[in-house]
């Protein structure tokens, strides 16, 4: 009886031992290596890096292995590790115009300098289970061509040159950092984009989808989606100039949205922006749609009361580590609170019954 709440320490140890055993699964089946996860489950690795806000495919692979494939748990492991890392400084802004693109498509122009490059995409595959893959995963080498070396200009630049799309003036203002300062509302666009890029893919997808179905609809064309490698450069104070410290793969999406114009702005197209670590195109497109919806105020649009327009709602609930922690905390004991509610409900019922009896006696 009362012993039920005792022995927590032993129970925790045993639970963890059992968890380790379950994670390993049947010891007769070969163990997964981190390289296998990194190479063959790379989109899972990408998601963990994006939402974990840490670009390290090997650590992400380790987190996925440790989390038994639960990606939110893996993201949590990465986030918790990330906070312990010292900061040496900031990189200079990456130049996505100089990206070595693996994939680059535009839905707004049939062709443009740099061309349409499908790259390694699930698009146009027929979603039929490939039973051959169950037995044999060997694939013939894909055909290859010599890479282009000239830069691939952003599609929106062509619209900008004509003045048809709203300009995004460059700024040297250092952006805020939501991992170092508590979020306050209203949040400016750099903070909103930070929250969205590390936000839960499912949540951001759902929010974006809601705008497509009419909750603050703002029809979006994928002006451009590009995936590829960019150089990361950092200014070294001792040197006085920036040097390349590595390369990362990014997915960037710019949407071109309709805009009727307002009192201050002539009719022109507007933009939504998505930028995510790794090959994460569903997330990048969704991010761009939600970014655009959140810009209603600065573009002088109406507040339609749609969830995706409400930055406090979107940004407060996009983080899956916050959400899952609070959701799952209701598993923790609450018997003290519950006891106080029990007492209260009993008291209220007693009083209600007494009132009823008194009324019956009076009648």
């Amino acid at each position, binding site marked *: 009886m009362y012993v039920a709440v005792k022995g*927590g320490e032993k129970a925790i140890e045993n639970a963890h031992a059992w968890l380790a055993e379950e994670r390993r699964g049947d010891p007769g089946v070969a163990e997964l290596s981190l390289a296998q996860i990194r190479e063959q489950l790379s989109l899972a690795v990408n998601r963990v890096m994006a939402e974990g806000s840490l670009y390290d495919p090997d650590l992400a692979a380790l987190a996925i292995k440790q989390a038994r494939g639960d990606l939110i748990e893996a993201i949590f492991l990465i986030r918790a590790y990330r906070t312990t890392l010292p900061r040496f400084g900031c990189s200079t802004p990456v130049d996505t115009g100089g990206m070595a693109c693996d994939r680059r498509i535009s839905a707004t122009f049939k062709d443009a300098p740099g061309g349409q490059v499908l790259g390694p995409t699930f698009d146009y595959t027929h979603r039929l289970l490939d039973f051959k893959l169950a037995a044999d995963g060997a694939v013939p080498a894909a055909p290859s061509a010599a890479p282009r070396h000239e830069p691939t200009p952003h599609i929106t630049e062509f619209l900008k040159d004509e003045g048809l799309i709203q300009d995004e003036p460059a700024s040297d203002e250092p952006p805020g950092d939501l991992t170092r300062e508590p979020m306050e509302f209203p949040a400016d666009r750099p903070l909103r984009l930070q929250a969205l890029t590390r936000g839960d893919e499912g949540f951001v997808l759902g929010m974006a989808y809601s705008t497509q179905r009419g909750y603050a609809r703002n029809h979006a064309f994928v002006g451009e989606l590009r995936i590829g490698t960019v150089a990361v450069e950092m200014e070294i104070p001792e040197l006085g100039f920036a040097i390349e410290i590595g390369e990362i793969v990014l997915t960037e999406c710019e949407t071109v949205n309709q805009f009727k114009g307002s009192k201050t702005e002539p009719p022109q197209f507007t933009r939504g922006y998505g930028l995510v670590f790794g090959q994460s195109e569903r997330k990048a497109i969704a991010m761009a749609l939600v970014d655009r919806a959140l810009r209603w105020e600065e573009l002088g649009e109406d507040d339609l009361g749609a969830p995706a327009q409400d930055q406090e709602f979107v940004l407060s609930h996009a983080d899956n580590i916050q959400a899952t922690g*609070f959701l799952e905390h209701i598993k*923790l004991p609450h018997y*003290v609170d519950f006891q106080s509610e029990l007492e209260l409900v009993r008291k209220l019922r007693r009083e209600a019954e007494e009132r009823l009896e008194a009324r019956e006696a009076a009648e």
Partner: protein
Amino acid sequence: MNEYNFAYLDEQTKRMIRRAILKALAVPGYQVPFASREMPMPYGWGTGGVQVSAATLTPDDVFKVIDQGADDTTNAVSIRKFFEKTAGVATTEETGKATIIQTRHRIPEARLRADQILVYQVPIPEPLRFLEPRETETRKMHSLQEYGLMHVKLYEDISQHGAISTAYAYPVRVADRYVMDPSPIPKFDNPKLEMDAIQLFGAGREQRIYALPPHTRVVSLDFEDYPFEASKADHACNLCGAEDSYLDEVITDDAGNRMFVCSDTDYCRSRREAGHQGRLAQEGTA
């Protein structure tokens, strides 16, 4: 775990948290935003309390952790082990021996002293949250002391149920200024909020820290004709016989029989060691 700093957090982060704590002590009941860090335990599981404890602990401290009043509930065990590992501090289950006590949902029964610090884990720091979901609005309401909505809520409780139907996380007014959520402690504990020890409240996910300096005036909201009442189960502890402690109700058999025991396990143990016996003392200690 030598690869981590004392009490896990790096010194800069601890300084940032200490600044928030000092501000919170200077403005009792005011929720100070702070840049909460991701901790290696989930949000909602005490990350705010853990960060406040980490910023407050020194190597000489003696640390105690309770959850629901008990030292041996699983999450209390987990947090205690975390600081044993990362800070190497001495831990205790005895309330009197602890210098810092981290708690979830209870205030210990034993009176705390001026040389002790009580750290609360807070899920939702905003007492007005369930009346107004927007942070931008509630911050405005606090700055204007616009607390009418809360009184209307309490009034509606009385008109519907004949009593204020808040049993835990019962709102208080601090130093005649801020309305504060004392975290989900049962309202039985509310009178104890005026105490000799420092009380610090940490909400990690919501990125807020607030505090009650010693001897701060803390008034549970009520009406003249419906005064606040600190209630508990109308029983004595079945193990130690205490009539003044908050009780947990435990279902003991398939027939639905109940026993009542102190939620504060250290209080119960110390009373039993002093020779006090409740109705089921023989059975319970077996």
